[in-house]
Structure formats: C-alpha cells, structure tokens
C-alpha cells in the first residue's frame, strides 16, 4: 500500500499549488469585485474603425 503515500503526496502537491494560487488571488484583489467581471465578459469591444490587418 506504499503507493498511497505517493498519491497523497502528489495530491497534496497539487493542493499546495492551488492554495498558493488562492492566497495570491485574494492578496492581489482578484475577488475584490465579485460582480462586474461577470458583466464585463459579455462585451468583446471590437475596434471602432476598420484596421488594416488582413485575414
């Protein structure tokens, strides 16, 4: 059953990565505003005037 420690270790490793990501998200104010991102994603803002990029 030794392998279970590897799995727990690997799972904890991933969990630790996510924990760091979570702390980063909170600290960098990712979740300060928990409403407008949901509205903002609805607008894609195409440029006003035609650009010269071609297909």
């Amino acid at each position: 059953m030794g392998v279970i420690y590897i799995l727990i270790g690997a799972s904890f490793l991933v969990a630790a990565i996510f924990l760091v990501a979570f702390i980063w998200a909170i600290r960098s104010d990712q979740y300060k505003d928990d409403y407008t991102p949901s509205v903002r994603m609805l607008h894609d803002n195409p440029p006003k005037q035609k650009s010269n990029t071609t297909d």
Partner: protein
Amino acid sequence: MELERFSYDNKIVRNFAVATLVWGIVGMLVGLVVALQLVWPDANAGEMLTFGRTRPVHTNAIIFAFVGNGIFAGVYYSLQRLLKARMFSDFLSKVNFWGWQSIIVLAAVSLLLGKTTGKEYAELEWPIDILIALVWVSFGINMLGTILKRRERHLYVAIWFYIATFVTVAMLHIVNSIEIPVSLFKSYSWYAGVQDALVQWWYGHNAVAFFLTTPYLGLMYYFIPKAANRPVYSYKLSIIHFWALIFLYIWAGPHHLLYSALPDWAQSLGTVFSIMLIAPSWGGMLNGLLTLRGAWDTVRENPVLKFMVVAVTCYGMATFEGPMMSLKSVNAISHFTDWTIGHTHVGGLGWNGFLTFGMMYWLIPKLYNTKLHSVRMANIHFWLGTLGIVFYVVPMYFAGITQSLMWKEFNPDGTLAYPNFLETVLQIKYAYAMRAFGGSLYLAGAVVMVLNLIKTAAAGSLVANEDAEAPALAKVYQAKAGSHWHRVIERRPVQMLVFSLVLVAVGGLVELVPTFLIKSNIPTISSVKPYTPLELQGRDIYIREGCYTCHSQMIRPFRSETARYGEYSKAGEFVYDHPFQWGSKRNGPDLQREGGKRNNAWHFLHLMNPRQTSTGSTMPTYEWLIKHELDTASTAAKINAMITLGVPYPEGYASQANNDLMKQAEEISADLAKADIEVPSTREIVAVIAYLQRLGTDIKVKDEVVKTAEPVQPETTPTASTDTTATVAQTGE
C-alpha cells in the same frame, strides 16, 4: 490609457472545432459498433475489431479526441477574449493542434493493433504517453503565457477552471504512466496489483474530474452567459464553486474500488469525499441553470441554450448519482454492471456531448461571421439527441439492476438461483439492443449537426484573425532596479516556505519512490509465486485482446460472489501483476479463480468458438490465437523487466526462461492431444490457456493441501469445478 490593437486567432479555434466534429462522429460510430457487438457477436469482425479492442478505441476517442478537441476549441476561443490578448504563441497553438491529432491517430491504430497497457483510459503505450505529456505541456505554456501577457487584470472564473485542468491532468498522466518499456510498443506498469489499481483509479476518477468536468465547467461559465447574453446568476457562487470543487475532487478516487482488496480506511475516505462533492457540483449546476432565470422564453427559441440546459441538467443528475454510487450499499449493486455504463453516459452524452453541441452551434456562425444555416435542423438534432440519451440510459439502468439482482439471488436451499452467468447476460440482451438504438439516434443527430454546420460555414467566410482593441495592463508592482531577484522571494516568507517544501517533496519522491515501491511488492502470502514464462506471455496476450474489458479479476467478499466464483480476492495475490487486471465491468464472469475449474480442452474450444461450449454467449471468437506463433523472442526482455520491478525470478533466469516455456507448452499441447485437439505447442492459444489455468490457483493449492490433510475424503472428481467455497468464511451481505 492608450488602446492597443491586436487580433484574436480564430483559425486555431476553427481547426479544433472541425477536429471535435470529425472525431466526435468517429467516436460515436465506434461506440455504436461496440454496442452492437454485445448484441450480435458476429459484429466482432476479425482480429482488429473485437470488443476488447474497439471498446478502448471508443472510450479513448470520446474522452481524448471528441471532448479533448472540444476543450481546446472552447479554451482557445474564450481564453483570448477573456484576457483580451491573442494566444501567447501561434507556433505552440499549432504544435498543440497537430500534436494532439497525431496522438489520436497513433492511439486509434495502436489500440486496434492490440498495443495496450491494459489500464482503462490510460491504455496508450509509452511512446504515445511521452508525446501526450509534451503536447499537453505546450498547451500549458501557451495558456500560461497568454495569461501573463493579458490586458485584463481579473482572471474570469472560467480561466481558473482551465488552469486547474492543465495542472492536474499533467500530474495524473505522469504519475499513472510510470512504466518500464520492454520494446517499442510494450511496457509494464511500474506498480503492481493493489498499488496499480489504486494509482489507476486515482487517475481514472480524476480524469473524469479534470478532463471531463473542470474544463467543461469553465466552458459553461463562458458560453452560457454569452449565448444568453446575460451575466452568470452569481459570480460569487462561481468562485466558491471553483475552489470548493478543486480541493475536494482529488480525494474521491478510491470509490472505484469499494469492496475490493483496497484497505477499508481508504475506501471510506473516498466515499466521504464523494458525498461532500455534491455541494460544489450542485452549486455549479444551479448557477448555470439560474443564469437563465427570467429568460426561459429565449431557451424555447435558441437551440444553443436548449442544448446547454440539457447538458447542465445532466451534469446535475450525474453528480448526484455519482456520490450515491459511491455509497457502499449502492455500490454493492451497481458495481461491475451496466448501471455504471448508464451513469457515465449521462455524463458523456448529456453533459459533455450536449455542451459541445451547444458550443458548436454558437461558435461556428461566429467564426464564419454568419447565421446558423437552419434552426429547424438544430431542433431536430436536439430531439434526436435527447431521445437518444433516454433510450440509451434507461435500458442501462434496467440492465444493471436486473443483472445484479440475478447475481445475488439465492434459492431457499442456499444455492445460487442463476448459477450459470450466461443466464444473467441473456436476460438483459433486450436492453443492449435498445441501447444500440438509443446510440444510433444520438449519432444520427450528430450527423444532422455536422451537415448544418458545413452549410453554415459555406454561407460565410472564416474570420481567421478577428481584430480587437484594449488598453495595456497597468503595472502595479515595479521591482526596484538593481536589486537581486532573490530578494523578491525573500520578502515573502510564507511563499518561500511553501516553495521549499514543494521542492523537497519532489526531490524526496523522485529518490524514494522506486525502491520503496519495489519493497512493498514483497509477497505477504507465501504460496503466491511469480508467473511462469509461458503464463506471463499468455497474460500479455490476455491484455492485448482486452479481456479485462469484459472479465473482472476481483471477487468481492459477498456470499453471492464466493459461491459463484470461489474464495474472495486478497491484496497479497496480485503482487506480481504488472498491470493489475481487476476490470470494472462484467460482461462475462469473473476469472480470478478460473484456474483449474475447467480442463484445457474446454478452454481451447471456448476460445475457438464460445457458442460451441456456451450457447448464446456474446464473446468473440479468437481463432487467430491458433494461427499465431507465440513471440518467444521477447521472453528474455520481459523476464528482465519483471526482475527490475522486483519480481523474484532467479538470477540469470531470462536466458533459460524459454526452455521452461517450451516444456510447459508441450505439456499443455500433449494434454490437448488427449482430447483429439492437435495444436502445435508454439501457438499463442497454448500460452493463453496456461495463464487462464493459473489464475487464482496459488491460494487454491493451499486449500487443497488443507483438504487432503483431512482424514476422510469421500469422492474426488478432478474434472469437476473446484469449489472452494466450503472452506471460505461467509462474509458480507
């Protein structure tokens, strides 16, 4: 703030979308073939097209080709827009696309040729595993690079789901694919028996979680609001949904091994986490559905939303059913039956399939700057698909429960009511036929969709690069010029600590794992011996033919199972099994105690034509096993690989293994000759028979010793089935 001009890469999205549709049709078609094979054995058309080989092609095609390309199409479209940036590298996008498609082609060909590791949903052999890792990492770099050069500070919740997908799948794939190559297309799992099973289902469960669920939840959070043109019901809930799901999902894997030889505490842990998962899953499901509150009239008009509503509903059903099935009392009935197949198809056909369809109906017109060709055709597809799901899933529930109850039914005198396994198969054949009908409805709907989308694309023209503009991201933190990079880390003690811990953990794992795994493979049951060279070769043919797709090798500690098959499985019996072959579904009986139950001649005739020995059997014929010469050239390499993995063959045994192999083969061949079956000892079938006759006998031998030690032994019938149940303590149920 000055506006920056850039363009979104739509061509890569289109390419992935086309691949999704093509592989979707292929995967569903193979699925239909597989379904028909269970009704008409004649549909097993030759060596490369038996159920044991087509079933892995179906599962791999749907999971990695259809859903995989669906993920990439959706991610490449939404990620660019959510981050207001073009993909980090067009080159990596192309590597991702062509790399993934070549993996799919290699997978299909190698699986049909019987090149398989024998581990469900991780069947691909080691060179393809390496390719998968490389392509997956190129996808990850591309995604993370795009995140770094984003023009939108906030990471929308969908992106978090994508990141979690990338990180976790990378880890799962690598840990589960550790194997020792024997030749270019043959390897043995590094893990053995129980350990292998645990790693495999930790992978298998989390592949469902992080390949079929998290990326699709991300797509749900992008495409439902977009299609409905209204924000998600609660953005706050979506954030809680994500973090709760991520921290719970990874611990639920052992629920695939309830009542198996896995330690009890690990089983219970898996169950507890599975039950807890209902909360975030349903939070997400409700969040998706409630996005449409007050807009249900648009659902009636808009086929995109129709598909998505059914998809999310199916997600809700599957994520309620899943935890229920991981309750031990329910699992005792559902496991090894078609109930599981029904459950996975609520998820596959409903959640993944319908969300993909909805996404395609929305995406293709956008990419081609036009309108959907026919809403009517989309509606026809919707009803064909929905009815297809119903006709698929309901018969599977009936089949699963019927069969399980028949397995467990006893006569008043304590004997099995249906001692012949075949009776329980014939009873549910009608359900298999209905399932094939449901599947063909679903496939027909998908074909209608493809036609509709081809017409749609033809009516417009591809906007390969879509112009966009957005201000650059303002820098928040400016590193002091001249200060050493290390200072930045030093200023963050907590992160520094976590980082070092992670590094130490990785280092420790790399060093300790191999030795430590081999040590734990030391047998705990003294009568369990390594396979003879012939048995080992036979086992590899058993794996090649995909026998595990229908036959389990795991007798659970229930009276109904010990009465039917014999002594229940012990963890110590599997220490030399690289890979384990416990299986997950019984289309045929369990084979763990098959050894010695029947004579060699019976096995020969049964493999030649199962219907000759068992009327009505749905098993394919394996006549080529008689024609093929056994590949004895590989024996030495295989034995050496096993020695490396800690299997205690004597030193230098590899060089003389073939002598032992031939001796045992000739014995079997001579025994067959007694029953008027003339077959050269060098043919593959001899090895397969050797393996089948070995199965589970290590413990049986011990029983017989105990039996013969008893003073009076009235009648011994050596040819009759060796029933060990008399000596078995009756447990379970």
